[in-house]
């Protein structure tokens, strides 16, 4: 009778279990890492859109303060395109379509405290959705009249 060296069933099962833990963990790490990279890229784009919008708003403020206050007084505007404009007033952020860069929603909330106003509080938001979650970058500033 010849005796062959081999692995028992239990040993094979334990080996497969350990190997599968390794593969599942690796797959999870890789998935999270890829998601984080995508998130960082979108965060960078969203920050850029926010900064550009705030720059444009500051330019509009400097052009004519009175018109700026009248236009923005306690309103929320949606800025759908790369070139901002005062065309779209919205009531809630859901009224702002996701069209900027294909995945972003960009809007700004204006608050005017005093009448006649010398200060306007501006908060700009750029949001996007990924995997059922909504991510957002926000910039807040207070604009004053120079004179």
């Amino acid at each position, binding site marked *: 009778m010849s005796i062959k060296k081999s692995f028992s069933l239990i040993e094979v099962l334990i080996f497969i279990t350990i190997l599968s833990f390794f593969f599942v963990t690796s797959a999870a790490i890789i998935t999270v890492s*890829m998601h984080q*990279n995508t998130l960082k890229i979108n965060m960078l784009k969203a920050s850029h859109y926010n900064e550009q919008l705030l720059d444009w708003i500051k330019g*509009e403020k*400097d052009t004519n303060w009175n018109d700026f206050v009248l236009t923005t007084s306690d309103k929320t505007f949606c800025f759908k395109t790369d070139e901002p404009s005062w065309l779209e007033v919205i009531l809630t952020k859901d009224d702002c379509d996701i069209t900027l860069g294909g995945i972003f929603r960009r809007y700004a909330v204006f608050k005017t405290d005093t009448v006649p106003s010398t200060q306007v509080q501006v908060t700009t938001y750029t949001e996007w959705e990924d995997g059922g979650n909504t991510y957002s970058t926000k910039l807040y500033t207070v604009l004053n009249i120079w004179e």
Partner: protein
Amino acid sequence: MGIKHKSFTLIELIVAVGVVGFVLPSVFNIFFTMIRQQLILVSYQEMKQQGDSIERNIKNILQTRTAYLTDSLYATNNPCPLFTTPTPTFSPEMYIRDRNEYGIKLYQKTVSGVDTIASDSADRNNSFLKTYNLSSKDVLVSDFGYSCFKVNDYSLPFVTTTFTMHKSTVFTDMVLPYSFKLQLRNY
């Protein structure tokens, strides 16, 4: 009878090669996707960094050194119409004079096959002094232009400047547009 050698059968080899042939491309696909994403992220970061640097440079020139704009190096015509005229067109070259009448020209230039924004300076006699590039050759700059207007004859002009940062990799083309408007300051 000869010596028996322990070895793999043909079926076992075929199965092993089949499994490896199935697993390896998946692993390499994941690996290269991760590298591709990292490359895109680094490219965007570089474009953003250089774009922000160009924006700061131009804003600094406009706000601290600019006394007035002209429509060419040798002229003193003011290129900024009143706001009520039709929308000013964008000009690809910006001519600036500082309070000492030294000239600065901002324009898009190709250096070693790469588009960048260059700044030329000249003395009050329009003799060329030096030029320097506002971005490195790792990123492309395109669509540089400026327009300006005044709200009345006595106000300082508002200058709108635009440019676009580009970077191309083997995987994708990336674009970051820049646009800003500011009012010149009085000297």
